[in-house]
């Protein structure tokens, strides 16, 4: 059963000239996607979601200079301190994305957060290393937030209670880069006491204060745990990415989004070469996909050391060592968890899966 619907409202020119010389604004195809959060009627109420619809482009240009922490755009017209902010987790609210780079195509899709902007120097300070990106085209967007996806006052209708134990939960994963796994748990609080719990609003479990502006990075997947038996549908408008995507995969667990609002397969994810492959799931890196029952289907790329005794080589679902799973579908709008053993960070790139 297909749970996601994509509607393209319009297809506009990918690049439209602006008034400013050498400054362009990318206008991607726009539309919306419906994401279904599964209830507990037929499963455990877990749903992995991505937010593949992009917020609007706030600025676009070409990088004319770079250091290990800054880029310069000599034609920049931004105001001082524009596109600057941090959420309560310290994540920048705005980011640049490389949309084209004739010098190095492998950088296209790279996303780096913005820490500061300087109008006089035409410079952006970033929280990653952009050196060598001279000549690359980029766009600036503001990241989605808990509020922009689920509604500032929970307009999507997730179950809301006085605490995380009585509410639907939104899980954000953190990875310390050394395999350390952590979770941020968010919920919409309805204060039954008239103020003791801090009033109504989005909260992070264990942390006081409003969490509505918590950033959801474009590469970041989410998991929602629903405690009611009914489904909830979220409609997210936006534009569609028309360049390749790039996601950093760290050692350990990575909860990542799929950046395009179309169904993918394990094969078309293009991640095989980044993962350790062994004779079974325990000796391989793994891809976790939450199915309609709210349970994990665990995939790995099997390398059969016996020449066939273990079921041969290829994508396998754990428990089905002899069944080719390369065409198993990762539905549009779903997230996946990737477990990677290697300490070395890997860049996972997906080419645009449509024309």
């Amino acid at each position, binding site marked *: 059963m297909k749970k996601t619907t994509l509607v393209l409202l319009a297809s506009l020119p990918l690049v439209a000239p602006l008034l400013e010389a050498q400054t362009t604004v990318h206008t991607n195809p726009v539309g919306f996607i419906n994401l279904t959060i599964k209830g507990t009627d037929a499963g455990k109420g877990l749903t992995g979601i991505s937010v593949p619809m992009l917020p609007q482009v706030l600025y676009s240009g070409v990088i004319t200079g770079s250091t290990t922490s800054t880029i310069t755009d000599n034609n920049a017209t931004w105001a001082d301190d524009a596109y600057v902010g941090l959420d309560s987790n310290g994540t920048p609210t705005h980011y640049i994305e490389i949309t084209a780079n004739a010098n190095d195509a492998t950088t296209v899709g790279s996303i780096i957060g913005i820490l500061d902007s300087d109008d006089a120097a035409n410079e952006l300070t970033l929280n990653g290393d952009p050196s060598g990106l001279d000549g690359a085209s980029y766009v600036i967007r503001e990241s989605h937030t808990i509020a922009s996806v689920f509604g500032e006052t929970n307009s999507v209708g997730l179950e809301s209670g006085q*605490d*995380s134990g009585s509410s639907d*939960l939104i899980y954000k994963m953190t990875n310390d880069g050394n395999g350390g*796994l952590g979770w*941020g748990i968010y919920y919409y609080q309805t204060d039954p006491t008239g103020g*003791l719990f801090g009033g109504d609003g989005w909260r992070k479990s264990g942390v006081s204060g409003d969490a509505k502006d918590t950033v959801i990075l474009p590469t970041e997947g989410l998991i929602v745990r629903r405690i009611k038996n009914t489904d909830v549908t979220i409609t997210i408008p936006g534009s569609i990415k028309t360049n390749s995507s790039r996601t950093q995969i760290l050692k350990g667990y990575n909860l990542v989004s799929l950046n395009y609002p179309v169904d993918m397969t394990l094969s078309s994810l293009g991640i095989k070469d980044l993962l350790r492959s062994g004779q*079974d799931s325990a000796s391989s890196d793994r891809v976790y996909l939450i199915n309609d029952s709210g349970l994990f289907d665990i995939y790995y790329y099997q390398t059969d050391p016996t020449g066939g005794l*273990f079921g041969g080589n290829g994508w396998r679902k754990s428990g089905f*060592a002899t069944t080719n799973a390369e065409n198993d579908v990762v539905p549009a709008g779903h997230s996946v968890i990737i477990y990677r053993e290697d300490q070395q960070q890997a860049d996972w790139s997906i080419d645009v899966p449509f024309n």
Partner: protein
Amino acid sequence: MKARAILPMFALFLSGISLYSQNIALGYGSTFANGEYSVFDDANGDPLDPTNNALLVAGYFDAGYDVTAGVSALKSDFTVANFSSFVSNFNELYSDDFGTDVGNASANIAPGFFFVDVSSLAVPAAAVGETPYIMALKGVTDFANAGLATEVGLFTDSSFATGVDPGQIPAGELIPTNYSLKKEVYSSVLLGSALEDVTLGAEYGGILQGQTGNIYATQAVPEPSTYAMMLGALSFGFVYYKRRIAGKKTDQKQEA
């Protein structure tokens, strides 16, 4: 052909052991439900809060330890040494010092009203299937020093041992399973005392004042000085008794 079938199954069995990180999302402490607030007090009736050096612990006893017998033995001979021995059987899942780090992992939003939420907690294998308890300690802010506490309360609920919501301590999953030990009423007070369905006074702050509450209080761990006084008194009494006996014997001798 048999080997082809068995080997993948064996591989699956092996892989099933280590495919997940085991986590729970733990919550414990005060809550508001059914029109009642649960709060924690010390032995004097003062609410426990960031100002009075106390700790709220969620934990479990060693497997096989007879908690009822242990509590009974402790109560019958409540010494610091016996208390220290008693708490050595208790293992913390998590502890927090009544919100001195408010805004981080816990919330003390009114005096005595304190809860802890932990988003992701790895569950020790020894904890799985054990009955959880809430332990309030006064006089310490680190569970490593639990044996030095001046007051203790130990609470649990029948649902923690037998129920499914929340039930015994779960193994956890990759996506942390919600495990809330917050109760407006704890059905069992092993150490300390409970005062239920009372109107909360001004000491609980303007928000809780006048609300219906269930107060779970610690009890004093007798201090060594108290025992020294008691021992002193006993020694004095023993000497007095011996002298009286000796005196009586002397009198008896003289009478003889």
